[in-house]
């Protein structure tokens, strides 16, 4: 989606404001929100790509004013609503409906450490050989998918060079939309800053992006 989240290259967002001694959570509720999204029971087939996609569906003006963990709460609500695990009325009232059944399979506290260290990896073995090799020139395709993608607008149509190959990885464009892992070869591609931003950019600078095989064509 060409939505507000695709911020690469934008002006007008003001100064970067690093905080001295920033704490992991600024408020207690932020820790609760972060914890909920780590360990809550998700619907079957839910993926990290679906998580990112749902965040991209937040209304653009709200995307810009809501804090990071407010957006996580929005994601949690969307996940539960779209899976029918809660109803809009329950969400509005903050209480389970008396007719709903209570599950007893949520993650226990003593399982959290192992969960956080063993969570699913996105690498997948692939039978077919990679189409591109390190050092090869490629062009990022000019495409405008209406769903989730990890190809930023600023790289589309631009050419760069493969600098590494990571083997097969889950394709977010499929995984975010219930179309399975659909793994593809993943590459790191180097783009000269001048290719991305024109002659005013520094001649020695570059930007690296991790891009899936179907995002690329030979240049």
């Amino acid at each position, binding site marked *: *989606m*060409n*939505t*507000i989240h695709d911020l690469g*290259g*934008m*002006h*007008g*967002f*003001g100064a970067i404001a690093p905080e001295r001694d920033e704490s992991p959570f600024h408020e207690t509720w932020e820790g609760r929100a972060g914890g909920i999204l780590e360990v809550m029971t998700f619907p079957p087939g839910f993926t990290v790509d679906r998580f990112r996609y749902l965040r*991209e*569906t937040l*209304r*653009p*003006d709200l995307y*810009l*004013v809501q804090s990071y963990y407010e957006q996580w709460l929005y994601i949690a609500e969307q996940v539960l609503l779209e899976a029918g695990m809660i109803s809009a009325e329950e969400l509005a009232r903050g209480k389970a409906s008396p007719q709903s059944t209570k599950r007893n399979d949520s993650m226990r506290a003593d399982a959290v450490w192992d969960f956080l260290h063993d969570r699913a990896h996105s690498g997948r073995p692939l039978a077919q050989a990679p189409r591109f090799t390190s050092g090869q020139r490629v062009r990022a*395709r*000019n*495409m*405008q998918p*209406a769903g989730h993608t990890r190809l930023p*607008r600023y790289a*589309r*149509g*631009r050419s760069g060079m493969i600098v590494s190959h990571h083997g097969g990885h889950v394709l977010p464009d499929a995984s975010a939309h219930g179309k399975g892992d659909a793994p593809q070869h993943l590459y790191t591609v180097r783009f000269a800053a001048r290719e991305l*931003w*024109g*002659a*005013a950019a520094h001649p020695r600078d570059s930007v690296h992006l991790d891009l899936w095989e179907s995002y690329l064509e030979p240049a």
Partner: protein
Amino acid sequence: MNGIHDLGGMHGHGPIAPEKDEPAFHAPWEARMLGIRRGATFPPEVNIDRWRHLRELIPPHLYLSRSYYDHWYMSYVAALLQSGWMTAEEIKSGHAAPGGARRNDAMRPEEVWEAQKTRGIFTRAVATLPMFAIGQRVRARNIHPTGHTRLPRYVRGKIGVVRLHHGGHVFPDANAHGQGEAPQHLYTIAFPMRELWGSDASPHDEACADLWESYLEPA
């Protein structure tokens, strides 16, 4: 600048919502703000291009969350503060600080119609011959100016054909920044939709943009 205003090609802003029998103004304050924009005395540097740039400099979250005439309010207040014609205290209180000079040169009601008829002519003589001819292939430059520009991001680096030549016109990128009118030849460039958006776009359709000569290079 690559600001939030540069909306061409974005997803996520929801359906278009035409109103049946929409009134000219939704509230009396909108009409007052329109009248202020057209009839109030502005700091001399605030030409049309400066005005558009002021609107682009509205913080992105306010740009997306506030209504059209509120943008005008925010742009005018910013111009008044920047020029020193008003202080923040005066804006907040709605009262002029005591002792300030009162001007007597505001536009009079009987001058309104003539202003409407005669304002806003932007053609200017330019001494140089046009660099491009109708029918010629040109590429919109890949540039990312931090100031005002009328070259939308979605055409940068794309190839099109010169459809119309409009002669010399005031150059917004200069005029918005106190650098004079610096007129240049202005062209309408037709870009095939597939050039702009990739092979999923309709092969029959095109988008045209009005672009100044320095935005273009031969292709």
